[in-house]
Protein backbone atom coordinates (compact mmCIF):
# COMPACT_ATOMS: atom_id res chain seq x y z
CA UNK A 1 0.00 0.00 0.00
CA UNK A 2 1.06 3.56 -0.58
CA UNK A 3 1.19 5.60 2.58
CA UNK A 4 -0.73 8.86 2.63
CA UNK A 5 2.42 10.65 3.66
CA UNK A 6 4.24 9.55 0.54
CA UNK A 7 1.42 10.69 -1.74
CA UNK A 8 1.22 13.99 0.10
CA UNK A 9 4.96 14.51 -0.12
CA UNK A 10 4.95 13.85 -3.86
CA UNK A 11 2.02 16.21 -4.36
CA UNK A 12 3.77 18.97 -2.41
CA UNK A 13 6.90 18.49 -4.50
CA UNK A 14 4.75 19.34 -7.50
CA UNK A 15 4.50 23.00 -6.52
CA UNK A 16 8.16 24.04 -6.74
CA UNK A 17 8.43 22.22 -10.08
CA UNK A 18 5.37 23.94 -11.53
CA UNK A 19 6.61 27.26 -10.17
CA UNK A 20 9.95 26.66 -11.89
CA UNK A 21 8.21 25.65 -15.12
CA UNK A 22 6.13 28.84 -15.10
CA UNK A 23 9.27 30.89 -14.46
CA UNK A 24 11.10 29.30 -17.39
CA UNK A 25 8.15 29.97 -19.70
CA UNK A 26 8.00 33.59 -18.54
CA UNK A 27 11.74 33.98 -19.06
CA UNK A 28 11.66 32.46 -22.56
CA UNK A 29 8.94 34.82 -23.72
CA UNK A 30 10.65 37.87 -22.31
CA UNK A 31 13.94 36.91 -23.88
CA UNK A 32 12.31 36.57 -27.32
CA UNK A 33 13.29 39.45 -29.55
CA UNK A 34 9.75 40.12 -30.89
CA UNK A 35 7.49 42.82 -29.47
CA UNK A 36 3.96 41.58 -28.68
CA UNK A 37 2.51 45.08 -29.06
CA UNK A 38 3.82 45.30 -32.63
CA UNK A 39 2.41 41.84 -33.36
CA UNK A 40 -1.06 42.89 -32.23
CA UNK A 41 -0.99 46.32 -33.84
CA UNK A 42 0.43 45.05 -37.11
CA UNK A 43 3.60 46.12 -38.90
CA UNK A 44 2.14 49.33 -40.32
CA UNK A 45 0.52 50.67 -37.16
CA UNK A 46 1.50 54.07 -35.83
CA UNK A 47 3.90 54.31 -32.93
CA UNK A 48 1.17 55.85 -30.77
CA UNK A 49 -1.11 52.89 -31.33
CA UNK A 50 1.70 50.47 -30.47
CA UNK A 51 2.45 52.41 -27.29
CA UNK A 52 -1.24 52.38 -26.41
CA UNK A 53 -1.40 48.59 -26.74
CA UNK A 54 1.82 48.20 -24.80
CA UNK A 55 0.46 50.07 -21.81
CA UNK A 56 -2.90 48.25 -22.13
CA UNK A 57 -1.08 44.91 -21.89
CA UNK A 58 0.99 46.16 -18.98
CA UNK A 59 4.23 45.66 -20.90
CA UNK A 60 5.52 49.02 -19.59
CA UNK A 61 5.38 47.82 -16.00
CA UNK A 62 8.58 46.75 -14.24
CA UNK A 63 9.52 43.16 -15.02
CA UNK A 64 8.86 41.90 -11.49
CA UNK A 65 5.31 43.25 -11.59
CA UNK A 66 4.70 41.50 -14.89
CA UNK A 67 6.14 38.32 -13.40
CA UNK A 68 3.91 38.40 -10.33
CA UNK A 69 0.89 39.10 -12.52
CA UNK A 70 1.86 36.22 -14.81
CA UNK A 71 2.13 33.78 -11.90
CA UNK A 72 -1.26 34.89 -10.64
CA UNK A 73 -2.81 34.35 -14.06
CA UNK A 74 -1.22 30.94 -14.47
CA UNK A 75 -2.45 29.86 -11.04
CA UNK A 76 -6.01 30.65 -12.13
CA UNK A 77 -5.58 28.99 -15.55
CA UNK A 78 -5.92 32.34 -17.25
CA UNK A 79 -3.43 32.36 -20.11
CA UNK A 80 -4.69 35.58 -21.66
CA UNK A 81 -6.16 36.04 -25.12
CA UNK A 82 -4.78 34.97 -28.44
CA UNK A 83 -3.32 37.69 -30.66
CA UNK A 84 -4.24 35.82 -33.79
CA UNK A 85 -6.92 33.11 -33.54
CA UNK A 86 -10.15 35.07 -34.05
CA UNK A 87 -8.36 37.85 -32.25
CA UNK A 88 -9.18 37.81 -28.56
CA UNK A 89 -10.29 34.19 -28.08
CA UNK A 90 -9.17 33.14 -24.59
CA UNK A 91 -6.18 30.83 -24.80
CA UNK A 92 -7.73 28.45 -22.29
CA UNK A 93 -10.70 28.02 -24.63
CA UNK A 94 -8.46 27.22 -27.61
CA UNK A 95 -6.52 24.73 -25.48
CA UNK A 96 -9.64 22.91 -24.27
CA UNK A 97 -10.72 22.56 -27.91
CA UNK A 98 -7.40 21.25 -29.13
CA UNK A 99 -5.99 19.30 -26.21
CA UNK A 100 -8.27 16.22 -26.52
CA UNK A 101 -7.16 15.82 -30.14
CA UNK A 102 -3.51 15.49 -29.13
CA UNK A 103 -4.28 13.34 -26.11
CA UNK A 104 -6.36 10.94 -28.19
CA UNK A 105 -3.54 10.59 -30.70
CA UNK A 106 -0.90 10.15 -28.00
CA UNK A 107 -2.93 7.58 -26.07
CA UNK A 108 -3.64 5.53 -29.20
CA UNK A 109 0.04 5.67 -30.15
CA UNK A 110 1.04 4.60 -26.65
CA UNK A 111 -1.50 1.80 -26.71
CA UNK A 112 -0.28 0.53 -30.07
CA UNK A 113 3.28 0.68 -28.77
CA UNK A 114 2.40 -1.33 -25.66
CA UNK A 115 0.32 -3.84 -27.59
CA UNK A 116 3.21 -4.80 -29.88
CA UNK A 117 6.26 -3.64 -27.95
CA UNK A 118 5.79 -5.61 -24.73
CA UNK A 119 5.22 -9.05 -26.33
CA UNK A 120 8.17 -8.48 -28.66
CA UNK A 121 10.41 -7.51 -25.75
CA UNK A 122 9.38 -10.56 -23.73
CA UNK A 123 9.87 -12.84 -26.72
CA UNK A 124 13.29 -11.33 -27.32
CA UNK A 125 14.34 -11.87 -23.70
CA UNK A 126 13.05 -15.42 -23.46
CA UNK A 127 14.77 -16.34 -26.71
CA UNK A 128 17.90 -14.43 -25.79
CA UNK A 129 20.78 -14.64 -28.29
CA UNK A 130 18.78 -16.53 -30.89
CA UNK A 131 17.85 -15.23 -34.32
CA UNK A 132 14.46 -14.11 -33.05
CA UNK A 133 16.24 -11.99 -30.46
CA UNK A 134 18.70 -10.49 -32.92
CA UNK A 135 16.00 -9.63 -35.43
CA UNK A 136 13.79 -8.06 -32.80
CA UNK A 137 16.65 -6.01 -31.39
CA UNK A 138 17.77 -4.75 -34.78
CA UNK A 139 14.16 -3.99 -35.65
CA UNK A 140 13.75 -2.05 -32.41
CA UNK A 141 16.97 -0.11 -32.92
CA UNK A 142 15.86 0.79 -36.43
CA UNK A 143 12.47 1.78 -35.06
CA UNK A 144 13.94 4.37 -32.72
CA UNK A 145 16.26 5.65 -35.47
CA UNK A 146 13.50 6.34 -38.00
CA UNK A 147 12.15 9.87 -37.68
CA UNK A 148 8.37 10.29 -37.66
CA UNK A 149 8.64 12.93 -40.35
CA UNK A 150 10.13 10.29 -42.64
CA UNK A 151 8.00 7.21 -41.88
CA UNK A 152 4.88 9.42 -41.98
CA UNK A 153 5.34 10.77 -45.51
CA UNK A 154 6.45 7.37 -46.82
CA UNK A 155 3.34 5.64 -45.44
CA UNK A 156 1.14 8.41 -46.84
CA UNK A 157 2.76 7.98 -50.25
CA UNK A 158 2.34 4.21 -50.14
CA UNK A 159 -1.12 3.74 -48.64
CA UNK A 160 -2.84 6.97 -49.64
CA UNK A 161 -1.14 8.12 -52.81
CA UNK A 162 -0.17 4.89 -54.61
CA UNK A 163 -2.58 2.30 -53.20
CA UNK A 164 -5.40 4.74 -52.49
CA UNK A 165 -6.47 2.73 -49.44
CA UNK A 166 -6.36 5.40 -46.76
CA UNK A 167 -6.92 9.15 -46.55
CA UNK A 168 -3.86 11.41 -46.49
CA UNK A 169 -4.63 13.90 -43.77
CA UNK A 170 -7.03 15.17 -41.13
CA UNK A 171 -9.03 13.29 -38.50
CA UNK A 172 -12.29 12.58 -40.30
CA UNK A 173 -13.82 12.90 -43.75
CA UNK A 174 -15.13 16.38 -44.57
CA UNK A 175 -18.60 14.96 -45.20
CA UNK A 176 -19.07 14.13 -41.54
CA UNK A 177 -19.83 16.49 -38.76
CA UNK A 178 -19.99 15.25 -35.22
CA UNK A 179 -20.82 17.26 -32.13
CA UNK A 180 -17.64 17.50 -30.06
CA UNK A 181 -18.81 16.17 -26.69
CA UNK A 182 -15.58 14.71 -25.33
CA UNK A 183 -13.31 16.02 -28.07
CA UNK A 184 -12.11 12.47 -28.76
CA UNK A 185 -13.26 11.83 -32.30
CA UNK A 186 -13.59 8.05 -31.89
CA UNK A 187 -15.74 8.48 -28.77
CA UNK A 188 -17.80 11.34 -30.20
CA UNK A 189 -18.71 9.48 -33.40
CA UNK A 190 -19.83 6.48 -31.35
CA UNK A 191 -21.81 8.67 -28.96
CA UNK A 192 -23.58 10.17 -31.95
CA UNK A 193 -24.28 6.64 -33.17
CA UNK A 194 -22.83 7.56 -36.54
CA UNK A 195 -20.92 4.45 -37.58
CA UNK A 196 -19.98 5.71 -41.01
CA UNK A 197 -18.32 8.69 -39.33
CA UNK A 198 -16.62 6.35 -36.86
CA UNK A 199 -15.21 4.28 -39.70
CA UNK A 200 -14.00 7.42 -41.42
CA UNK A 201 -12.27 8.54 -38.22
CA UNK A 202 -10.61 5.14 -37.79
CA UNK A 203 -9.22 5.17 -41.33
CA UNK A 204 -7.95 8.71 -40.81
CA UNK A 205 -6.26 7.91 -37.51
CA UNK A 206 -4.76 4.60 -38.61
CA UNK A 207 -1.58 5.94 -40.24
CA UNK A 208 -0.81 8.62 -37.62
CA UNK A 209 -1.21 6.04 -34.86
CA UNK A 210 0.99 3.53 -36.68
CA UNK A 211 3.70 6.16 -37.22
CA UNK A 212 3.61 7.26 -33.60
CA UNK A 213 3.28 3.65 -32.43
CA UNK A 214 6.35 2.35 -34.28
CA UNK A 215 8.62 4.55 -32.20
CA UNK A 216 6.90 3.67 -28.93
CA UNK A 217 6.88 0.00 -29.84
CA UNK A 218 10.61 0.04 -30.54
CA UNK A 219 11.36 1.84 -27.28
CA UNK A 220 9.15 -0.36 -25.14
CA UNK A 221 10.36 -3.63 -26.63
CA UNK A 222 13.95 -2.60 -25.84
CA UNK A 223 13.08 -1.72 -22.28
CA UNK A 224 10.96 -4.80 -21.79
CA UNK A 225 13.76 -6.99 -23.11
CA UNK A 226 16.52 -5.64 -20.90
CA UNK A 227 14.27 -5.66 -17.86
CA UNK A 228 13.13 -9.21 -18.54
CA UNK A 229 16.68 -10.42 -19.20
CA UNK A 230 17.65 -9.13 -15.79
CA UNK A 231 14.71 -10.78 -14.07
CA UNK A 232 15.23 -14.15 -15.75
CA UNK A 233 18.67 -14.31 -14.11
CA UNK A 234 17.34 -13.84 -10.61
CA UNK A 235 17.51 -16.66 -8.10
CA UNK A 236 13.78 -16.79 -7.51
CA UNK A 237 13.27 -17.65 -11.15
CA UNK A 238 15.63 -20.60 -10.84
CA UNK A 239 13.89 -21.68 -7.65
CA UNK A 240 10.54 -21.58 -9.38
CA UNK A 241 11.86 -23.71 -12.19
CA UNK A 242 13.52 -26.08 -9.73
CA UNK A 243 10.19 -26.55 -8.00
CA UNK A 244 9.06 -28.12 -11.22
CA UNK A 245 7.07 -25.30 -12.73
CA UNK A 246 7.11 -25.17 -16.48
CA UNK A 247 9.32 -22.57 -18.02
CA UNK A 248 6.42 -20.65 -19.52
CA UNK A 249 4.48 -20.45 -16.28
CA UNK A 250 7.56 -19.22 -14.43
CA UNK A 251 8.08 -16.48 -16.95
CA UNK A 252 4.46 -15.41 -16.88
CA UNK A 253 3.86 -15.64 -13.17
CA UNK A 254 7.07 -14.51 -11.57
CA UNK A 255 8.99 -12.84 -14.31
CA UNK A 256 6.50 -10.43 -15.82
CA UNK A 257 5.41 -8.86 -12.59
CA UNK A 258 8.94 -7.94 -11.66
CA UNK A 259 10.01 -7.00 -15.14
CA UNK A 260 7.13 -4.53 -15.53
CA UNK A 261 8.36 -2.25 -12.75
CA UNK A 262 11.20 -0.54 -14.63
CA UNK A 263 9.13 -0.54 -17.82
CA UNK A 264 6.44 1.55 -16.14
CA UNK A 265 9.02 4.17 -15.16
CA UNK A 266 10.21 4.27 -18.72
CA UNK A 267 6.66 4.83 -19.96
CA UNK A 268 6.59 7.90 -17.72
CA UNK A 269 9.92 9.25 -18.87
CA UNK A 270 9.11 8.54 -22.50
CA UNK A 271 5.81 10.40 -22.26
CA UNK A 272 7.83 13.47 -23.19
CA UNK A 273 9.03 11.90 -26.41
CA UNK A 274 5.48 10.71 -27.04
CA UNK A 275 4.25 14.31 -26.89
CA UNK A 276 7.13 15.45 -29.10
CA UNK A 277 6.24 12.67 -31.52
CA UNK A 278 2.60 13.75 -31.45
CA UNK A 279 3.62 17.29 -32.49
CA UNK A 280 5.54 15.94 -35.48
CA UNK A 281 2.77 13.49 -36.38
CA UNK A 282 0.19 16.27 -36.28
CA UNK A 283 2.32 18.36 -38.62
CA UNK A 284 2.77 15.53 -41.12
CA UNK A 285 -0.90 14.50 -41.13
CA UNK A 286 -2.36 18.00 -40.72
CA UNK A 287 -4.17 17.21 -37.51
CA UNK A 288 -5.28 20.25 -35.51
CA UNK A 289 -4.02 19.31 -32.08
CA UNK A 290 -1.99 21.48 -29.74
CA UNK A 291 1.19 20.46 -31.57
CA UNK A 292 0.23 22.27 -34.76
CA UNK A 293 -1.24 25.00 -32.59
CA UNK A 294 2.16 25.57 -30.96
CA UNK A 295 4.06 25.57 -34.25
CA UNK A 296 1.61 28.05 -35.80
CA UNK A 297 1.66 30.23 -32.69
CA UNK A 298 5.46 30.45 -32.73
CA UNK A 299 5.43 31.32 -36.43
CA UNK A 300 2.89 34.10 -35.85
CA UNK A 301 4.45 35.38 -32.61
CA UNK A 302 1.21 34.61 -30.81
CA UNK A 303 2.88 34.73 -27.39
CA UNK A 304 -0.09 33.96 -25.10
CA UNK A 305 -0.82 30.80 -27.07
CA UNK A 306 2.85 29.75 -26.99
CA UNK A 307 2.90 30.34 -23.24
CA UNK A 308 -0.28 28.40 -22.58
CA UNK A 309 0.62 25.49 -24.84
CA UNK A 310 4.12 24.99 -23.46
CA UNK A 311 2.80 25.22 -19.91
CA UNK A 312 0.08 22.69 -20.57
CA UNK A 313 2.58 20.28 -22.15
CA UNK A 314 4.92 20.61 -19.16
CA UNK A 315 2.11 20.15 -16.65
CA UNK A 316 0.83 17.07 -18.49
CA UNK A 317 4.31 15.59 -18.53
CA UNK A 318 4.85 16.31 -14.83
CA UNK A 319 1.47 14.86 -13.85
CA UNK A 320 2.02 11.68 -15.85
CA UNK A 321 5.35 11.20 -14.11
CA UNK A 322 3.72 11.76 -10.73
CA UNK A 323 1.18 9.08 -11.62
CA UNK A 324 3.99 6.76 -12.68
CA UNK A 325 5.84 7.34 -9.40
CA UNK A 326 2.73 6.48 -7.43
CA UNK A 327 2.03 3.35 -9.51
CA UNK A 328 5.62 2.35 -9.06
CA UNK A 329 5.38 2.61 -5.30
CA UNK A 330 2.30 0.38 -5.30
CA UNK A 331 4.16 -2.28 -7.30
CA UNK A 332 7.36 -1.96 -5.29
CA UNK A 333 6.73 -0.62 -1.76
CA UNK A 334 10.47 -0.35 -1.06
CA UNK A 335 10.61 2.75 -3.25
CA UNK A 336 9.16 4.94 -0.49
CA UNK A 337 12.39 4.76 1.41
Amino acid at each position, binding site marked *: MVSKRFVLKRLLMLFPVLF*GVATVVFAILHLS*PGDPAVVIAGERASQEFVNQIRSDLGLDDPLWQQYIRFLGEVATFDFGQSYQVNRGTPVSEILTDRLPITIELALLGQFAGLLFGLPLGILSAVKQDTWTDHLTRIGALSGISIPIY*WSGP*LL*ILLFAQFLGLLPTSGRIGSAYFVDPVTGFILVDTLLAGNFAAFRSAVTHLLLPVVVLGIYQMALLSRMMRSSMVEVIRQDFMRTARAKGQGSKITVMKHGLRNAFIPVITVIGIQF*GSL*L*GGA*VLTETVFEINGIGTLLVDAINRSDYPVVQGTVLVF*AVLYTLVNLGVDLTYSILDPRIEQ
Partner: protein
Amino acid sequence: MSTETQTETVERGIVERLRASPFLSQLVSNRLAVTGIVIIVGVVLLAIYARLTYNISDLMATQFGTNPSEASPSLEYLFGTDGQARDIFPRVLYGAWYAVLYGTVTVAASTFLGVGLGIVAAYYGDLTDNLIMRTMDVLLSFPSLLLALALVTIFPEELGLWRAVGALTLVYTPRFARVVRGAALKVLEDEYTDATKALGATDPRLLVRHILPNCLAPITVQSTLNYGLAIIDIAALSFLGFGASPGEPTWGMMLSNGVEFGLFSGAWWWSFFPGLLLALTVLGFNLLGDGMRDALDPRMRETVD
Protein backbone atom coordinates in the same frame (compact mmCIF):
# COMPACT_ATOMS: atom_id res chain seq x y z
CA MET B 1 59.02 -18.21 -40.40
CA SER B 2 60.37 -15.30 -38.46
CA THR B 3 57.91 -12.83 -39.90
CA GLU B 4 55.11 -15.21 -39.08
CA THR B 5 56.09 -15.42 -35.45
CA GLN B 6 56.53 -11.68 -35.45
CA THR B 7 53.01 -11.01 -36.62
CA GLU B 8 51.85 -13.64 -34.21
CA THR B 9 53.52 -11.83 -31.33
CA VAL B 10 52.08 -8.54 -32.50
CA GLU B 11 48.66 -10.09 -32.73
CA ARG B 12 49.02 -11.61 -29.32
CA GLY B 13 50.10 -8.21 -28.05
CA ILE B 14 46.94 -6.62 -29.42
CA VAL B 15 44.78 -9.36 -28.00
CA GLU B 16 46.42 -9.02 -24.62
CA ARG B 17 46.05 -5.28 -24.62
CA LEU B 18 42.41 -5.66 -25.54
CA ARG B 19 41.99 -8.22 -22.81
CA ALA B 20 43.49 -5.78 -20.35
CA SER B 21 40.82 -3.29 -21.33
CA PRO B 22 37.54 -5.17 -21.10
CA PHE B 23 35.65 -2.16 -22.37
CA LEU B 24 37.46 -1.99 -25.70
CA SER B 25 37.45 -5.74 -26.27
CA GLN B 26 33.77 -5.89 -25.43
CA LEU B 27 33.12 -3.11 -27.85
CA VAL B 28 35.16 -4.65 -30.66
CA SER B 29 33.60 -8.06 -30.18
CA ASN B 30 30.14 -6.50 -30.31
CA ARG B 31 29.22 -6.82 -33.97
CA LEU B 32 26.44 -4.26 -33.75
CA ALA B 33 28.75 -1.65 -32.24
CA VAL B 34 31.30 -2.23 -35.00
CA THR B 35 28.54 -1.84 -37.60
CA GLY B 36 27.68 1.44 -35.90
CA ILE B 37 31.27 2.65 -36.10
CA VAL B 38 31.45 1.72 -39.80
CA ILE B 39 28.25 3.67 -40.53
CA ILE B 40 29.45 6.72 -38.59
CA VAL B 41 32.85 6.77 -40.28
CA GLY B 42 31.11 6.40 -43.64
CA VAL B 43 28.79 9.34 -42.97
CA VAL B 44 31.65 11.53 -41.74
CA LEU B 45 33.70 10.75 -44.86
CA LEU B 46 30.66 11.50 -47.00
CA ALA B 47 30.19 14.80 -45.18
CA ILE B 48 33.79 15.86 -45.74
CA TYR B 49 33.65 14.76 -49.38
CA ALA B 50 30.46 16.76 -50.00
CA ARG B 51 31.88 19.83 -48.25
CA LEU B 52 35.03 19.75 -50.40
CA THR B 53 33.32 18.89 -53.69
CA TYR B 54 30.20 21.00 -53.85
CA ASN B 55 29.61 24.70 -53.69
CA ILE B 56 26.82 25.49 -51.27
CA SER B 57 25.39 28.41 -53.27
CA ASP B 58 25.14 26.17 -56.37
CA LEU B 59 23.21 23.62 -54.34
CA MET B 60 20.79 26.25 -53.04
CA ALA B 61 20.10 28.07 -56.31
CA THR B 62 17.21 26.99 -58.53
CA GLN B 63 18.32 25.09 -61.61
CA PHE B 64 15.47 25.68 -64.07
CA GLY B 65 16.78 25.35 -67.58
CA THR B 66 19.77 23.25 -66.54
CA ASN B 67 17.83 20.33 -65.08
CA PRO B 68 14.31 19.05 -65.57
CA SER B 69 12.03 19.82 -62.64
CA GLU B 70 10.55 17.00 -60.53
CA ALA B 71 12.33 14.29 -62.50
CA SER B 72 12.20 10.83 -60.96
CA PRO B 73 15.48 9.07 -60.13
CA SER B 74 17.52 8.08 -63.19
CA LEU B 75 21.14 7.39 -64.03
CA GLU B 76 21.74 11.08 -64.60
CA TYR B 77 19.90 12.23 -61.48
CA LEU B 78 20.43 9.37 -59.04
CA PHE B 79 17.97 10.68 -56.43
CA GLY B 80 15.82 12.65 -58.91
CA THR B 81 15.28 16.40 -58.94
CA ASP B 82 13.03 18.60 -56.81
CA GLY B 83 10.49 21.30 -57.62
CA GLN B 84 13.25 23.87 -58.09
CA ALA B 85 14.93 21.56 -60.65
CA ARG B 86 17.79 20.95 -58.22
CA ASP B 87 19.59 17.62 -58.36
CA ILE B 88 18.73 15.92 -55.06
CA PHE B 89 21.80 13.62 -54.90
CA PRO B 90 24.47 16.23 -54.08
CA ARG B 91 22.03 17.98 -51.76
CA VAL B 92 21.51 14.81 -49.75
CA LEU B 93 25.28 14.30 -49.54
CA TYR B 94 25.76 17.88 -48.38
CA GLY B 95 23.07 17.26 -45.77
CA ALA B 96 25.53 14.87 -44.12
CA TRP B 97 27.91 17.79 -43.62
CA TYR B 98 25.17 19.83 -41.94
CA ALA B 99 24.17 16.92 -39.72
CA VAL B 100 27.75 16.13 -38.65
CA LEU B 101 28.74 19.77 -38.10
CA TYR B 102 25.67 20.95 -36.21
CA GLY B 103 25.28 17.65 -34.37
CA THR B 104 28.89 17.78 -33.17
CA VAL B 105 28.61 21.35 -31.94
CA THR B 106 25.37 20.57 -30.10
CA VAL B 107 26.77 17.50 -28.38
CA ALA B 108 30.11 19.18 -27.58
CA ALA B 109 28.45 22.27 -26.12
CA SER B 110 25.95 20.38 -23.98
CA THR B 111 28.62 17.93 -22.81
CA PHE B 112 30.88 20.82 -21.82
CA LEU B 113 28.14 22.72 -19.97
CA GLY B 114 26.65 19.62 -18.38
CA VAL B 115 29.99 18.25 -17.22
CA GLY B 116 30.95 21.59 -15.70
CA LEU B 117 27.65 22.02 -13.87
CA GLY B 118 27.52 18.38 -12.76
CA ILE B 119 31.02 18.30 -11.30
CA VAL B 120 30.63 21.64 -9.57
CA ALA B 121 27.29 20.54 -8.10
CA ALA B 122 28.75 17.28 -6.82
CA TYR B 123 31.91 18.84 -5.39
CA TYR B 124 30.52 21.91 -3.64
CA GLY B 125 27.27 20.27 -2.54
CA ASP B 126 24.72 22.05 -0.34
CA LEU B 127 23.34 25.26 -1.76
CA THR B 128 25.34 25.18 -5.01
CA ASP B 129 24.24 21.60 -5.65
CA ASN B 130 20.62 22.40 -4.90
CA LEU B 131 20.59 25.53 -7.01
CA ILE B 132 22.11 23.80 -10.04
CA MET B 133 20.22 20.54 -9.83
CA ARG B 134 16.80 22.04 -9.12
CA THR B 135 17.23 24.26 -12.18
CA MET B 136 18.14 21.16 -14.17
CA ASP B 137 15.05 19.39 -12.79
CA VAL B 138 12.82 22.20 -13.99
CA LEU B 139 14.33 22.03 -17.49
CA LEU B 140 13.82 18.26 -17.44
CA SER B 141 10.12 18.65 -16.68
CA PHE B 142 9.45 19.88 -20.20
CA PRO B 143 9.03 17.43 -23.06
CA SER B 144 12.36 17.95 -24.83
CA LEU B 145 11.23 18.77 -28.37
CA LEU B 146 8.65 21.26 -27.07
CA LEU B 147 11.16 23.02 -24.85
CA ALA B 148 13.49 23.21 -27.84
CA LEU B 149 10.68 24.71 -29.95
CA ALA B 150 10.05 27.39 -27.33
CA LEU B 151 13.75 28.07 -26.82
CA VAL B 152 14.42 28.53 -30.54
CA THR B 153 12.42 31.75 -30.35
CA ILE B 154 14.86 33.48 -27.99
CA PHE B 155 17.62 33.45 -30.62
CA PRO B 156 17.57 36.04 -33.40
CA GLU B 157 16.41 34.69 -36.74
CA GLU B 158 19.67 35.58 -38.53
CA LEU B 159 21.39 32.73 -36.71
CA GLY B 160 19.55 30.20 -38.88
CA LEU B 161 20.29 26.62 -37.94
CA TRP B 162 22.50 27.77 -35.05
CA ARG B 163 19.25 28.66 -33.28
CA ALA B 164 18.41 24.97 -33.20
CA VAL B 165 21.90 24.20 -31.89
CA GLY B 166 21.51 26.77 -29.10
CA ALA B 167 18.06 25.54 -28.09
CA LEU B 168 19.02 21.86 -28.10
CA THR B 169 22.21 22.55 -26.14
CA LEU B 170 20.08 24.01 -23.36
CA VAL B 171 17.71 21.04 -23.59
CA TYR B 172 20.44 18.38 -23.38
CA THR B 173 22.67 20.02 -20.75
CA PRO B 174 20.59 18.83 -17.75
CA ARG B 175 20.93 15.19 -18.83
CA PHE B 176 24.72 15.46 -18.82
CA ALA B 177 24.71 17.37 -15.55
CA ARG B 178 22.70 14.61 -13.90
CA VAL B 179 24.84 11.75 -15.18
CA VAL B 180 28.10 13.52 -14.34
CA ARG B 181 26.95 14.58 -10.89
CA GLY B 182 26.10 10.98 -10.05
CA ALA B 183 29.43 9.68 -11.33
CA ALA B 184 31.39 12.47 -9.61
CA LEU B 185 29.70 11.82 -6.27
CA LYS B 186 30.90 8.23 -6.46
CA VAL B 187 34.45 9.31 -7.27
CA LEU B 188 34.41 11.83 -4.41
CA GLU B 189 33.80 8.98 -1.97
CA ASP B 190 37.12 7.39 -2.94
CA GLU B 191 40.08 7.92 -0.69
CA TYR B 192 42.38 9.24 -3.36
CA THR B 193 40.39 12.46 -3.59
CA ASP B 194 41.07 13.03 0.10
CA ALA B 195 44.72 12.20 -0.48
CA THR B 196 44.95 14.66 -3.37
CA LYS B 197 43.34 17.34 -1.25
CA ALA B 198 45.72 16.61 1.61
CA LEU B 199 48.62 17.06 -0.80
CA GLY B 200 47.40 20.59 -1.35
CA ALA B 201 45.75 20.36 -4.79
CA THR B 202 43.56 23.34 -5.63
CA ASP B 203 39.87 22.82 -6.35
CA PRO B 204 40.12 23.32 -10.12
CA ARG B 205 43.09 20.94 -10.32
CA LEU B 206 41.29 18.28 -8.31
CA LEU B 207 38.14 18.61 -10.41
CA VAL B 208 39.81 18.62 -13.81
CA ARG B 209 42.77 16.31 -13.25
CA HIS B 210 41.34 13.76 -10.86
CA ILE B 211 37.57 13.70 -10.82
CA LEU B 212 36.80 14.39 -14.48
CA PRO B 213 38.95 11.54 -15.91
CA ASN B 214 37.17 9.09 -13.66
CA CYS B 215 33.77 10.15 -14.95
CA LEU B 216 34.67 9.80 -18.62
CA ALA B 217 32.97 6.45 -19.23
CA PRO B 218 29.39 7.52 -18.50
CA ILE B 219 30.04 10.85 -20.24
CA THR B 220 31.13 9.07 -23.42
CA VAL B 221 28.08 6.81 -23.50
CA GLN B 222 25.74 9.72 -22.87
CA SER B 223 27.42 11.78 -25.61
CA THR B 224 27.18 8.98 -28.15
CA LEU B 225 23.52 8.29 -27.45
CA ASN B 226 22.79 12.02 -27.55
CA TYR B 227 24.59 12.40 -30.88
CA GLY B 228 21.93 10.46 -32.72
CA LEU B 229 19.25 12.31 -30.83
CA ALA B 230 20.83 15.69 -31.63
CA ILE B 231 20.91 14.91 -35.34
CA ILE B 232 17.29 13.73 -35.35
CA ASP B 233 16.14 16.73 -33.26
CA ILE B 234 17.99 19.32 -35.35
CA ALA B 235 16.34 17.82 -38.40
CA ALA B 236 12.97 17.87 -36.60
CA LEU B 237 13.33 21.58 -35.84
CA SER B 238 14.30 22.23 -39.47
CA PHE B 239 11.34 20.15 -40.56
CA LEU B 240 8.98 22.23 -38.42
CA GLY B 241 10.42 25.37 -39.98
CA PHE B 242 12.77 26.52 -37.20
CA GLY B 243 16.38 26.70 -38.17
CA ALA B 244 17.43 26.14 -41.75
CA SER B 245 16.45 28.75 -44.31
CA PRO B 246 14.44 27.64 -47.35
CA GLY B 247 16.64 26.02 -49.96
CA GLU B 248 19.38 25.09 -47.52
CA PRO B 249 20.27 21.44 -48.15
CA THR B 250 19.64 20.06 -44.66
CA TRP B 251 17.85 16.73 -44.39
CA GLY B 252 15.09 18.23 -42.26
CA MET B 253 14.45 21.02 -44.75
CA MET B 254 14.41 18.57 -47.68
CA LEU B 255 11.93 16.36 -45.83
CA SER B 256 9.79 19.38 -45.11
CA ASN B 257 9.76 20.25 -48.81
CA GLY B 258 8.97 16.65 -49.63
CA VAL B 259 5.91 16.71 -47.38
CA GLU B 260 4.73 20.14 -48.42
CA PHE B 261 5.12 19.79 -52.16
CA GLY B 262 6.09 16.24 -53.08
CA LEU B 263 3.43 14.28 -51.23
CA PHE B 264 0.47 14.96 -53.47
CA SER B 265 2.34 14.80 -56.73
CA GLY B 266 3.62 11.38 -55.63
CA ALA B 267 7.26 12.55 -55.83
CA TRP B 268 8.43 10.01 -53.25
CA TRP B 269 12.11 10.61 -53.95
CA TRP B 270 11.99 14.09 -52.37
CA SER B 271 11.36 12.55 -48.96
CA PHE B 272 12.81 9.09 -49.39
CA PHE B 273 16.54 9.76 -49.88
CA PRO B 274 17.18 12.51 -47.31
CA GLY B 275 15.21 10.52 -44.72
CA LEU B 276 17.06 7.31 -45.55
CA LEU B 277 20.44 8.89 -44.89
CA LEU B 278 19.16 10.59 -41.76
CA ALA B 279 17.77 7.33 -40.36
CA LEU B 280 20.97 5.47 -41.25
CA THR B 281 23.16 8.04 -39.49
CA VAL B 282 21.03 7.98 -36.37
CA LEU B 283 21.03 4.18 -36.45
CA GLY B 284 24.84 4.24 -36.54
CA PHE B 285 25.03 6.30 -33.37
CA ASN B 286 22.37 4.21 -31.63
CA LEU B 287 24.21 0.98 -32.48
CA LEU B 288 27.48 2.35 -31.11
CA GLY B 289 25.86 3.85 -28.02
CA ASP B 290 24.09 0.58 -27.30
CA GLY B 291 27.30 -1.39 -27.71
CA MET B 292 29.14 0.99 -25.40
CA ARG B 293 26.49 0.66 -22.73
CA ASP B 294 26.59 -3.12 -22.94
CA ALA B 295 30.38 -3.07 -22.69
CA LEU B 296 30.32 -0.79 -19.66
CA ASP B 297 27.51 -2.51 -17.79
CA PRO B 298 29.03 -5.55 -16.10
CA ARG B 299 25.62 -7.13 -15.63
CA MET B 300 25.19 -7.26 -19.39
CA ARG B 301 28.66 -8.67 -19.94
CA GLU B 302 28.15 -12.22 -18.77
CA THR B 303 25.98 -14.25 -21.07
CA VAL B 304 23.52 -16.56 -19.44
CA ASP B 305 22.38 -19.78 -20.93
